[in-house]
């Protein structure tokens, strides 16, 4: 959904036949290799993977009493001892505040600005793909990274939770208990939701990334945007702008933990993410078409 809105931008070169698709796939694969083999990004993924392990060990040593826990998803803490699945949910909640957005900031900030800074963007543009397709490929890579990062957090949370704690039927927020398979299906939906939320942030990142050659500036800017958005979201006096903040719907995945699933909450979130992808996708596109690539 999120990638489609970017790739739907009309292609300048018609692409009949399989050759351009193959070219594109090769380009996409090389972009994926670039992102997933870069030591900096691997370190980020390692930190993301380490967090659920660390949380699991801490909670294993110092097991909280059932029903205890702080505000927000802190309430999950009390349930982890009874069901390891909640470690996965708790890890997603904890990392979604700063660490996941940080990882997305680094990758998306690097995507265009990093190449420009290294002087490799010019070389890339010699690939017979066109700037629109270059941008689409870059963004598709970011989306894959968002899914990978969220999946790593959720997967390791689940794994560590299953090792340290019992795993069984899941108690939802509404007080209903669903079988483990149903609970895991909901967890999968949550992973998709959070990954799409991060992809929307990635769209802002790639748009900012087209304006500068300094990747670090984009990373810092995007992180500041995230933090300001989260602060404003907590100030009730500006409630009128809350639905428009990029981070407002990130934590709405609690709607998937109710019976019946509160789809309206989920759909509001997805609409917000789609809006951000479209707006910043088009901004990035407009900027890319114009920019003089000199380095």
């Amino acid at each position, binding site marked *: 959904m999120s990638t489609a809105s970017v790739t739907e931008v009309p292609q300048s070169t018609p692409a009949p036949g399989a050759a351009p698709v193959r070219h594109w796939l090769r380009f996409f694969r090389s972009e994926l290799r670039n992102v997933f083999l870069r030591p900096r990004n691997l370190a980020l993924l390692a930190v993301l993977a380490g967090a659920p392990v660390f949380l699991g060990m801490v909670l294993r040593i110092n097991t909280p009493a059932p*029903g205890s826990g702080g505000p927000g998803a802190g309430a999950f803490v009390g349930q982890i001892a009874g069901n390891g699945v909640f470690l996965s949910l708790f890890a997603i909640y904890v990392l979604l505040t700063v660490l996941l957005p940080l990882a997305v900031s680094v990758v998306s900030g690097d995507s265009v600005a990093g190449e420009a800074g290294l002087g490799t963007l010019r070389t890339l543009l010699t690939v017979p793909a066109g700037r629109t397709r270059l941008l689409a490929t870059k963004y598709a890579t970011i989306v894959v990274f968002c899914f990978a990062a969220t999946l790593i957090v959720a997967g390791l949370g689940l794994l560590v939770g299953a090792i340290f704690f019992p795993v069984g039927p899941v108690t939802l927020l509404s007080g209903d208990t669903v079988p483990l398979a149903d609970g895991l299906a909901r967890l999968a939906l949550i992973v998709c939701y959070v990954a799409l939320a991060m992809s929307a942030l990635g769209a802002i990142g790639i748009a900012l990334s087209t304006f500068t050659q300094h990747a670090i500036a984009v990373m810092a800017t995007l992180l500041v945007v995230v933090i300001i958005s989260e602060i404003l979201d907590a100030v009730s006096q500006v409630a009128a702008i809350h639905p428009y903040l990029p981070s407002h719907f990130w934590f709405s995945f609690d709607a998937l933990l109710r019976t019946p699933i509160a789809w309206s909450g989920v759909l509001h979130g997805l609409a917000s993410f789609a809006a951000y992808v479209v707006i910043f996708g088009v901004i990035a596109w*407009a900027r890319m078409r114009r920019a003089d690539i000199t380095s």
Partner: protein
Amino acid sequence: MRRRGRLGIRTRWVLPAGAVVIAGGVLAGTVLASAAAPALPRQTPAQLLAAMQHATLPPAMTATISQSANLGFPALPDIGGMASSPMSAAALISGTHTVQVWYAGPRHLRVALPVSFGETDLRVNGSQVWLWDSRGQTATHFVAPSSARPMPGQVNPAPGSREPDPLAGLTPLQAAQRVLAMVGPTTKVAVPGTIEVAGRAAYQLVVAPRASQSLVGRIVIAVDAKTHLPLSVQVFARGSSSPAFQVGFTSLSLARPAMSNFTFTPPAGAKVKTAKLPLPALMPGAGSMPGAGRLPGAARPGARDGHGPLGGAQTFGKGWLTVAAIPAGLPGAAAGPTGSGSAAYQSSLKITGPAGQGLGMLRVLMKAMKPVHGTWGSGRLLRTTLFSVLLTSKGQLLVGAVTPAVLYADAAKVK
């Protein structure tokens, strides 16, 4: 590439601007309720009021009810997590709250109060009544009386009914009912147009007090064109264009909800408690949920017999100028020096009994109260957009949707 390459800078940036406008519009459309006016046959206020008298709760519904208040209070700190609970009095006077209702007759009801990563659920299935709180993972089993309950939420409940009403104060029905009770010579009524609420065509019924001492400017009720159920109630302060208080359906389906909504089995690992009815005393704030339980101006006649949320209250005045006087603890509490909001002053005000929860918050509001005096005595005054609160030196708390002058006049009458 070649064709696009010739696009001027201005043309190129039209696209992002357009995307912002379209996406913003779509987002606003999903976030804000649409306000298209449906075409309906004309009705006079009298016709509409008569039809509303006979309206009853539908046999089944699945609904989302949203309540919001902006009473112009000073910003309240979160005392002991009070504001974070959707059922607290503090939550009721500020912010927006959502309640979900599944209803299939008086013996099958589920009311859910979803909050971020939490939910409180009341489930009634025949004689089985459960209250679930996800925060503490606690399930409370209420031992219900075996006799059948009266039809809840009826616009005209049997007088003298003392059975707990499971939907008490939850739906716009109660709010509208209280407003309609005010209709009389002191009130102007009009039907200025139609509106769409929760996807249903509705008439707008405007009720406004004639007395200029009332702080209520007007009350707008959206009356469903088919069922004549009130779909929303908005209270506007005098001279204000945005509602100070509103409660209404944001979604409403009259289909019968699935039975799984009403049944409840405590999950493994939950704390299970057993409690005896009556429910309202045990479910915090059940009597003061989004609804007109607290609707300023609709000072309830029931308050006098200790049935309302404010036990032991006296009332003065009539209709829109009704003022409730509540003994608020130690005499002389408010007579102290004007060292505004000193800790000693605040702690001197001890409130107990059923009014405790609602009034406990008032201690926090002390800081915002101005010292006032007159021929009636002296005390402290809090004025918000929709009502005034006077705490006299005799320890009486006077509350009404009226100008302070009315409170002073009534304060002189308090024994």
